[in-house]
């Protein structure tokens, strides 16, 4: 091999290179003074160049500038992230909502209706009672009116078959159905009778009414019949209004 070919090897060699692959070059250097001199010059020049390469102007603020720039980038990214995430999840939320509306919501609604119907069937409405027990009816009425359960003496012979809570001119009232006369019913209003608190507008077309007060409550006897028939009923039951 000629010196020219070894020169490329001399330029390729560096400290730490694989010794075995450069062994032919070192063998040549041992017997070629010209190439050995080139090798020595190149090695010396490399050391000088390495020193020269280390002479460059320092930049004392560079590290700080980079770290500050990175912190700024991170802060910007942190503010952008929620918007990006929100829009990314919109299709997911929309799909879930669609599945819910089409599949789960009708079932849930049906289940809720079933529960409510079962509740209605198992317990009577709180504002109505069907009973023929006079004491029970009067106690229930008193609870709704939040007052005494006793009736005036003139109503002592009257029996009832049911009651319901109503509101008359913003006053609590109880509507009781008579047991012994289906045409008759009694309205107990938790208010005193005054000239303004009239019940004329409540008269049925084919019926009549009689009302009186004990100073605390107002009692209205409603009768689906003529005045004579009502008076006959009142006389029979001992009601003296």
């Amino acid at each position, binding site marked *: 091999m000629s010196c020219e070919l070894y*020169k*490329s*090897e001399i*330029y*390729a060699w*560096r400290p*730490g290179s694989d010794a075995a692959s450069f062994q032919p070059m070192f063998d040549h250097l041992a017997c070629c003074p010209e190439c050995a001199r080139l090798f020595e010059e*190149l090695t010396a*020049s*490399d050391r*000088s*160049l*390495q020193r*020269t*390469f*280390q*002479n*460059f*102007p*320092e*930049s*004392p603020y*560079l*590290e700080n*500038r*980079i*770290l500050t*720039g*990175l912190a700024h*980038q*991170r802060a910007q990214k942190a503010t952008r992230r929620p918007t990006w995430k929100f829009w990314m999840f919109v299709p997911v939320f929309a799909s879930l909502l669609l599945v819910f509306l089409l599949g789960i919501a009708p079932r849930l609604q049906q289940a809720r209706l079933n529960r409510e119907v079962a509740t209605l069937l198992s317990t009577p409405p709180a504002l109505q009672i069907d009973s023929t027990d006079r004491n029970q009816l009067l106690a229930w009425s008193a609870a709704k009116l939040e007052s005494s359960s006793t009736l005036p003496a003139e109503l002592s012979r009257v029996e009832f078959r049911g009651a319901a809570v109503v509101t008359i001119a913003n006053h609590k009232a109880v509507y009781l159905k008579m047991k012994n006369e289906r045409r008759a019913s009694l309205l107990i209003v938790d208010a005193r009778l005054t000239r303004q608190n009239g019940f004329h507008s409540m008269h049925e077309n084919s019926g009549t009414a009689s009302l009186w007060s004990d100073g605390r409550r107002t009692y209205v006897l409603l009768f689906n019949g003529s005045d004579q028939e009502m008076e006959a009923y009142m006389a029979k039951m001992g009601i003296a209004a």
Partner: protein
Amino acid sequence: MQISDQIFDDWVRQYHRLLYGIAYWWTGSRSDAEELTQEAFFQAYRSRSGLRDIEAVKAWLVGILRHCYAQMSRKGHGKIEVSLDEMRDEFGDFNPAAISAPDMSQALALHQSLDRLDERHRLPIVLFYFQDLSYREIAEALELPIGTVMSRLSRAREMLQKSLTTQHKLEIVKKVKRS
């Protein structure tokens, strides 16, 4: 690979001087080198999940620096000529006493010699001399086969030596003429 902000900041502290030095010898300008180094770290931060081997972080960062340098070159940045006055300005700002006149003269000669090399020879020769990177590290940073790196370096060293020798001879001739 998950790289935390803390780890990345440590890399900035550890490698910013290396990248800056390489960029300085590639561009011949302190301000361009600072801009390149900063941009390289910003790009590295954005693409840090692409780092496959944490042990190869140095070569990875140098590779990104090379991309940034290529972008800068395409945009027409970077110095073409370096004068002795500019060298004095660049060194003089921070530590005027640190660089002796012969060193500065050598640095200028080196700048001019590097400037005469084409890019495919200048880039590996800086990595070779400045940071003493291994052939493998240079090959990874420049994304070249190791054999190509070895042949380019061999050629670059030869061209650099000849250029420096020629300049040295010209300096002697100038001195003789002045005297």
